[in-house]
């Protein structure tokens, strides 16, 4: 996550085009260079989860079903789903999201076929294994976890983050 600082300029540029509402109607946004920082910058001081998934990942569909269940229970949960599939697969991605994702979720799809810079911007410690989930707390501290997560554990995190202290 160290490289995030280097991207400040990029994000400032990106921010000027960022939508004001982070919970807009489900429309898949093109994920390009700068998008990751755009997602984060739009949520300064708020807890949120970014989950990366793909059509080619069975564990991801299980995780999405779990997140859907969780989002149903916790309407405050700010969840961002990013598909690492290709623009050619947009219809299939849309269908999978319509079927399995929570209703009010911000969704993105990798829109640059040159994915090496995208992964690098997101996290140099990530090598593309899926699912990959990033938990941001209100202080913007982040924890990354590879692999499918269990409902109870994510629920514990959600309760901690969204309960006023």
């Amino acid at each position, binding site marked *: 996550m160290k490289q995030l600082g280097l991207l400040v300029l990029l994000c400032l540029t990106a921010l000027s085009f960022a939508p004001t509402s982070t919970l807009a109607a489900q429309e898949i946004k093109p994920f390009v260079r700068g998008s990751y920082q755009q997602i984060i910058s739009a949520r300064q001081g708020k807890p949120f989860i970014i989950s990366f998934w793909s059509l*080619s990942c069975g564990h*991801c569909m299980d995780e999405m079903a779990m997140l859907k269940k969780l989002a149903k229970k916790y309407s405050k949960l700010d969840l961002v789903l990013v598909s690492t599939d290709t623009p050619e697969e947009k219809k299939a991605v849309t269908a999978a999201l319509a*079927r*399995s994702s929570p209703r009010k979720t911000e969704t993105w799809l990798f829109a640059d076929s040159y994915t*090496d810079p995208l992964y690098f911007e997101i996290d*140099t410690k990530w090598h593309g294994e899926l699912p990959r989930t990033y938990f941001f707390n209100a202080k913007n501290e982040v924890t990354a976890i590879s692999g499918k997560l269990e409902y109870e554990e994510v629920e514990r995190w959600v309760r901690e983050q969204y309960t006023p202290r």
Partner: protein
Amino acid sequence: MKNSIFTLFLAATLTACPALAADHSGHGKPGAETSTAPPIDREKLWKESLAKPSFAVTASFDENGKLWLAAIRGQHVFVSYSTDHGVTRSAPVKVNTEPENILGDGENRPKIIVRKGVVYVSYTQGLAKPMTGHIRFSRSLDGGKTFSQPITVNDNLEIISHRFDAMGVNDRGQVFVAWLDKRDLSVAAKKGEKYAGLGLYYAVSDDKGKSFKANIKAADHACECCRVAMAIDTDGYPVIVWRHVFDTNIRDHALLKLDGKMAPVRLSYENWNVAGCPHHGPSLSIASDGIYHAAWFSNAPQQRGLFYGHSTDWGGTFSSPMNFGNIEAQPSRPSVFSLGSRVFLVWKEFDGERTGIIGMHSGDAGKSWSAPGKLATTSDVSDWPFLIGKNNRAYLSWNTKNEGYRLIEIGEEKK
């Protein structure tokens, strides 16, 4: 906060993974889907998504130093050859005359081996459902002018995953094809039982690929979506290395010689506990002196990145793994290759600006290594890098969107 996430991580990694036995053929878990969504022709969408372009080019040299290439264009595997290191190529010849969905993204690619005048090709045919496929095989007996009607090698024909083929040919004209196979998972799912990962199967041809004998199970519980590596040992039997599911979800590597005698052994111990899809398989080369050289990837929190190890006792034990590559540059896709006691490694890195292929070599069977050096770069999409050899020289074989296919000799400066 840190404590809670640590607990979360621990719990996530220690929890059993019931999902492993569930949705891997795209069926979904009961109750996971909403009934309100409009009906969607998933198979049509899936077929459309298979049309994405493939940059996979697989190359190998025959005994005479001719370079043979297999690539995907549209719904066909095409084979061509080059006598000038890939600069000019013969007119590509279709392997499958009937159109098929050929898998050529990520860890999937056609394989090509040419021995004693026979061109052997294997590939994975994508089927109507996500994450499903059949293992296909074809050969040419006339120097690549025409290819036999492809046959399906897997003898279980359910619409499930039989994918990630690996192929080897020995001097006796035996052909070995190994792949990842969900037939046991399918049986378990029907009984409502759990089955971690999937099966690893192989088939042998004793007649230069004219026919294959019945499929044989090599191992239960392989990881679902990482390529299988295969190399022919000095006695002509193939050795395979793959990512395995140990215990509940430890996804480290295992090795097995397909001689019908050996039982699988564990090769690596990074203890990567992940209920996920790394899409990142190993590489294996067996030297003429019988030493096994393996390279692999792990993202275990304490042991991250690329690793190399060698075995002087036919895979029984491996040297202490050497961690290589610049961990800040996302090192990936290792390929290992040996020429006698000379061993070569190449892999991918991204330095923040460009994608590069980095290489290093050893002159003493992998005991000591040169400094890493950049062999080639690109600034757009690229295929995985591979090492091949002829006339006692090693070459990097790499396809990129911008530069096209490149074959680059690996220099070995004296230390």
